[in-house]
C-alpha cells in the first residue's frame, strides 16, 4: 500500500522558534526568517540547501512569494495551502510526496505573525475583510464570530454528554501547569479552576480563560528524506503518518457539533503509521478553546465519544496525569500568533528529542500532533516517532 511507502520515509531534522510572546519592533517576516534560520542551522544545513518551501499567512494571500524573495532561495517545491491553523501540520504530506518523488531534498515549513504587538488589522478590519474575501453569508447577519462558533460546539457537547464548565476549566488549568514548566511560555502565572469559572464570559459557556491568548511568534521546521536525515546533526523525528480532512467552513454546516473531522484525519494518520492511540507517549493538540482539547481527545480515540470531560477531570492531562497533553502550555498559555499548528509540531519534536527540560515526558518515543483550522472546519493529524518507533 502507498501509505506504507510513506510511513517513516521523511523526518523532521531541524526546528526553530523566534519572537515568542512579544516581538516589539520586528516584523512578522523578520521573526519568521529568524525561526527559519534557527531550524536550518539546527539541522546542520544552510539556507542554500533548502529547495522546497511550505508556508501560509492569515493576511497575505501570496505569502510564499515574499517568503521566497526574503530568504533568497529558488525552491523546486512550493506549497502555500491555507487550511487555517492546521496548515503547517497539513503541509507534511505534500512535502513527503515531493521528497519521495525526488523533486527536492530539504523542505522548510515556516510561519510567523506579530498578532499581539503589531496586528495587521484591527478586529473590525478583520471582520470587514472576512465579509469581503471569506464570506459567511448565512452567519454574518447574526453577528457570529470565532468564539460564538466554538461556544455552540461546547454548549452542544455539554448538553449531549453532561460535560461541565469545570471539565473545560480543567483543560485551561492543565495547560497553565505545563506552561509553568516551560520558560518560553508567555502565560505562567498560577491559574485555578475557580479563576477560570469566575472569568468574564465571552460567549456562553466559554469564559476568557477558555479562549487561547493572542501572542507574537514564529516557528519553522525542516523535512528531509529518512536516508539523508541519518547523516544530519540532530536525532531524526520520523513522520509515521499524516492526513488532513475538511468537512465544512461555517459552523452551521458542521454535521454534528460534537464530532470533528479529526475523527477522519486521525483514523487515516494512525492507519498510515500502523499504530493506535495506546501506542502514543505524548499528545500535542490545537487548543484554540478548551472544548477543542476534549473534542480531539475523543475524535482521535484517546477516549470514547462523550467521555472527554471525565478524561481531563482531576488533572487527567496536567503534569503527572494519565496522558501528557499540550506539554508546552498550548495555545491557551504558551503561544498563539493566529495559527498555532506550527508550534505543536515543534513541541512534539522537542519532546521526541528529549529536549523538554522540566516538562520532558520521560522516554517519549511517539507523539500525536493534531491541528485545527477555521471553525472546527479543517483537521490535520500527524504521528511522529523516534528511530525506536520505526
Amino acid at each position, binding site marked *: 500500500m502507498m501509505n506504507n511507502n510513506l510511513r517513516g520515509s521523511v523526518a523532521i531534522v531541524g526546528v526553530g522558534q523566534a519572537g515568542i510572546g512579544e516581538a516589539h519592533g520586528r516584523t512578522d517576516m523578520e521573526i519568521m526568517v529568524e525561526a527559519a534560520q534557527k531550524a536550518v542551522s539546527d539541522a546542520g544545513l544552510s539556507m542554500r540547501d533548502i529547495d522546497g518551501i511550505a508556508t501560509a499567512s492569515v493576511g497575505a494571500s501570496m505569502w510564499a512569494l515574499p517568503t521566497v524573495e526574503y530568504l533568497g532561495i529558488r525552491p523546486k517545491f512550493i506549497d502555500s495551502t491555507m487550511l487555517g491553523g492546521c496548515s503547517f501540520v497539513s503541509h507534511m504530506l505534500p512535502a513527503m510526496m515531493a521528497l519521495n518523488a525526488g523533486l527536492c531534498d530539504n523542505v522548510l515549513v515556516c510561519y510567523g505573525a506579530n498578532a499581539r504587538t503589531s496586528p495587521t488589522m484591527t478586529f473590525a478590519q478583520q471582520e470587514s475583510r472576512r465579509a469581503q474575501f471569506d464570506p459567511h453569508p448565512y452567519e454574518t447577519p*447574526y453577528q457570529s464570530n470565532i468564539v460564538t462558533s466554538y461556544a455552540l460546539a461546547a454548549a452542544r457537547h455539554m448538553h449531549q454528554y453532561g460535560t461541565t464548565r469545570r471539565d473545560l476549566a480543567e483543560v485551561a488549568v492543565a495547560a497553565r501547569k505545563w506552561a509553568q514548566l516551560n520558560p518560553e511560555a508567555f502565560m505562567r502565572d498560577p491559574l485555578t479552576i475557580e479563576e477560570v469559572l469566575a472569568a468574564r464570559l465571552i*460567549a*456562553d459557556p466559554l469564559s476568557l480563560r477558555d479562549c487561547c491568548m493572542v501572542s507574537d511568534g514564529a516557528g519553522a521546521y525542516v523535512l528531509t528524506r529518512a536516508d539523508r536525515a541519518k547523516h544530519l546533526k540532530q536525532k531524526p523525528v520520523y513522520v509515521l503518518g499524516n492526513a488532513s480532512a475538511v468537512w465544512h467552513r461555517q459552523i*452551521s454546516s458542521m454535521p454534528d457539533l460534537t464530532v470533528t473531522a479529526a475523527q477522519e484525519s486521525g483514523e487515516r494518520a494512525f492507519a498510515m503509521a500502523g499504530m493506535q492511540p495506546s501506542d502514543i507517549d505524548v499528545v500535542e493538540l490545537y487548543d484554540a478553546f478548551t472544548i477543542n482539547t476534549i473534542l480531539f481527545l475523543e475524535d482521535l480515540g484517546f477516549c470514547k465519544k462523550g467521555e472527554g470531560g471525565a478524561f481531563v477531570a482531576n488533572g487527567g492531562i496536567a503534569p503527572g496525569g494519565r496522558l501528557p497533553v499540550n506539554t508546552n502550555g498550548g495555545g491557551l498559555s504558551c503561544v498563539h500568533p493566529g495559527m498555532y499548528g506550527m508550534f505543536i509540531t515543534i513541541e512534539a519534536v522537542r519532546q521526541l528529542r528529549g529536549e523538554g527540560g522540566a516538562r520532558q515526558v520521560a522516554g517519549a518515543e511517539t507523539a500525536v500532533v493534531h491541528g485545527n483550522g477555521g471553525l472546527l472546519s479543517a483537521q490535520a493529524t500527524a504521528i511522529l516517532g523516534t528511530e525506536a518507533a520505526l
Partner: protein
Amino acid sequence: MTNATIFEGDGPEKVYHELLKQGKFRIQRCGACGGHIFFPRVICTLCGSADLAWIAPSGRGTVYSTTVLRRKPESGGNLNLVLVDLEEGPRMMSRVEGISAEEVKIGMAVEASIIEDKGAPLVVFHPAGEAK
C-alpha cells in the same frame, strides 16, 4: 451537451435574498433525492444533482445549540445565537427572539419569522406557540 447551463437566471444566493425581501423564507428541495438543503446552492450536497426547487418550509424547528454573545450595553448588549434544525432536516444559524438570550435552551421548539435587521430581511425564531 456538457456545456449546457445547469441552472437558469440568477444564482440561488440572490434568489434567496430576493424572496426574503418579498416576505418569503424558502429552502431548496432536491428533485433527484428528495432531500432538503440549506444554505441555498447550485447543487444538492446530499446527491450532487442540480435539480433543486424552492419550497416553503413549515417554519418549525428545534434549537440544536445556543450561545449568548456577551457584550457591554454600549456595544449592543448580550445577543443570542442559535443553530436551529428545521423540520425538513437542514440546520441554519439564527437567533431566538421574544425571550432573554439566556433563556434559550437546546431542544426548544421554535418558529421562524422574517424581521428587518439593519435594513435587510432576516430569518429569526420565536418560541413555538408564542405571539410574534
